[in-house]
């Protein structure tokens, strides 16, 4: 059963359509990835799903219940790890977790027990009485994730959870997320880190300009949009036109990215002979989710 379902979900600000007609079904227990450039509408979508921002149009159901009517109930089973640090700087590290647990009505002794356990898990025990300003960026991030878990959520929503973390801390977070999988917790992950999405997510939605462009398992997205391998050809300006014409005439699926041309959906057969011979620098490499991302959302920076 879908734990979260949206129908024609839309959010419009004065002259901006932030989320445009999104229909989603997120299955219970899966890890669902949301990829997209800045301004694609990911955060606004998350804010609507977490009942913080009312939609302009459309409907949301959490555990089969209309979110508008059961917002509190839905929020009580969700843990949210926001992109921007909003830890409470007026409180200590331990107080941050305990106060947050109190928002969820967790009894005091239980809140203390859980908070200490989470501080232990994220290697922050020694900092429990520190002020937030004394923490490093990585520690804040870890505390933010710990805070998202303090209510034992059934759904955890993480917006860029590992940004600014060193590789050790990142693996700690990935490990914890995998552990949550075993407990059947649904995870929603907004990220720009393609490795993270490939490793962790069962399904990934690629979003741009408020719309979901495609949605599937990472390997299926790669197979569909770029094939198993990508050929990168380094070109200089003189040969460029010829080369493009040649690729065109052979009916290949390629993309012109200035200094490089990327050719997709090429098998092992020597369909590119004649190009290699011309002395072009050519490299074959396995296709990534990042290639899909660029193909669907474009290479230019979005204003």
């Amino acid at each position, binding site marked *: 059963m879908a734990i979260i379902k949206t129908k024609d979900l839309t*959010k419009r*600000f004065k002259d*901006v359509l932030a989320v445009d007609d999104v229909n989603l079904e997120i299955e219970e227990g899966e890890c669902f990835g949301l990829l997209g450039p800045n301004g694609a509408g990911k955060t*606004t979508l998350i*804010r609507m799903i977490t009942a*913080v921002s009312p939609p302009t149009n459309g409907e949301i159901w959490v555990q089969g219940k209309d979110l508008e009517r059961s917002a509190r109930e839905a*929020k009580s089973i969700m843990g949210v790890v926001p992109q921007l640090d909003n830890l409470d700087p007026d*409180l200590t590290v331990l107080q941050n977790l305990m106060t*947050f647990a*109190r928002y969820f009505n967790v009894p005091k002794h239980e809140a203390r027990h859980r908070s200490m356990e989470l501080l232990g898990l994220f290697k922050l025990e020694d900092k429990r009485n520190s002020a937030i300003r004394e923490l490093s960026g990585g520690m804040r991030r870890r505390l933010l994730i710990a805070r998202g878990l303090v209510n034992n959520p059934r759904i955890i929503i993480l917006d860029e959870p590992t940004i600014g973390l060193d590789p050790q801390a990142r693996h700690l977070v990935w490990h914890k997320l995998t552990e949550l999988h075993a407990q059947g917790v649904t995870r929603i992950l907004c990220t720009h880190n393609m490795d993270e999405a490939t490793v962790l997510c069962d399904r990934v939605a690629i979003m741009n300009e408020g719309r979901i462009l495609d949605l599937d398992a990472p390997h299926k997205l790669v197979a569909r949009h770029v094939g198993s391998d990508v050929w990168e050809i380094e070109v200089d300006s003189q040969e460029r036109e010829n080369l493009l014409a040649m690729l065109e005439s052979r009916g290949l699926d390629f993309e012109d990215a200035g200094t490089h041309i990327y050719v997709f959906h090429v098998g092992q057969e020597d369909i590119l002979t004649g190009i290699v011979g011309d002395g072009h620098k050519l490299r074959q490499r396995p296709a990534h989710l990042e290639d899909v991302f660029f193909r669907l959302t474009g290479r230019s920076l979005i204003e």
Partner: protein
Amino acid sequence: MKLFSWRCIRMWQRNRDVFVRLWHSEAPGAIAEPILILVAMGLGLGAYVGLVDGQRYIEFIAPGIIASYAMFSASFECTYGTFFRMEYQKTFDAVIATPLSVEDVIAGEIFWGATRSMLTGTVILTIAAAFQLVHSPWAILIPLVCFLEGVVFASIAVFYTSMVPAIYTFNYYFTLFITPMFFFSGVFFPLSSFPQIVQTLSWIIPLTPVVHLTRSLVSGDVHLGLLWVFGLVLLFAAGFFSLSLFTMRRRLAVLKGLCCRTTWLDSTAQVKAPFYMLNIENYSVEL
């Protein structure tokens, strides 16, 4: 309009915990100031003031000082304090992702502001009693009056805070609203020195009925007519409380993404634009 629930106590508790942790950094100053005013105005200036009924000037102003400083407490807490938590610390964003709603958060803020009023009022009442300026057991009700007064001024402050683009905008609030009220609500001189029309109008300034209440309770001049005055304060409280819940929901939930976007794109322009224009523009978005 949506109502708040008992969960607002959670936000109140959060603010109380912070106060308990940090009170020593602000509370002493907040107590010293009313004592200074009481001594300087009451004894210093009071030596030159003869009231019609022969009352000592310090006795006349003491109940007004209680009401005024209770007003200041809630006003600071729910302008600068609330704005800080909302815009710089993003505390509200974090809390509304939990089972608390925007309304719970705002009600918690207002009740906390009212609690600060009550604490301040009680401390000054105690000081006034030490100066032997309290003559009636009815004064025991003053903390309650200060709490209700706190709800009024915290609500007005939150309502204003829900519309300001930048922290500097609070200067207007204090110079054009709070300070005039401090001087023209019958704290330092009886309103009877004004023409009748001004006297009548002064009753729509929320501090006037509160000063009337505290003065009556301190002097023991208690009669049924005070219920009307109390009712007027209650009316102010209910009105501004509902208004602030409504406007804060717009700021924190409905328009949020837009606010983020404009601040992010052009924060300087937003600070420079006249605040009332900006908000009219934002408000026309609806949805």
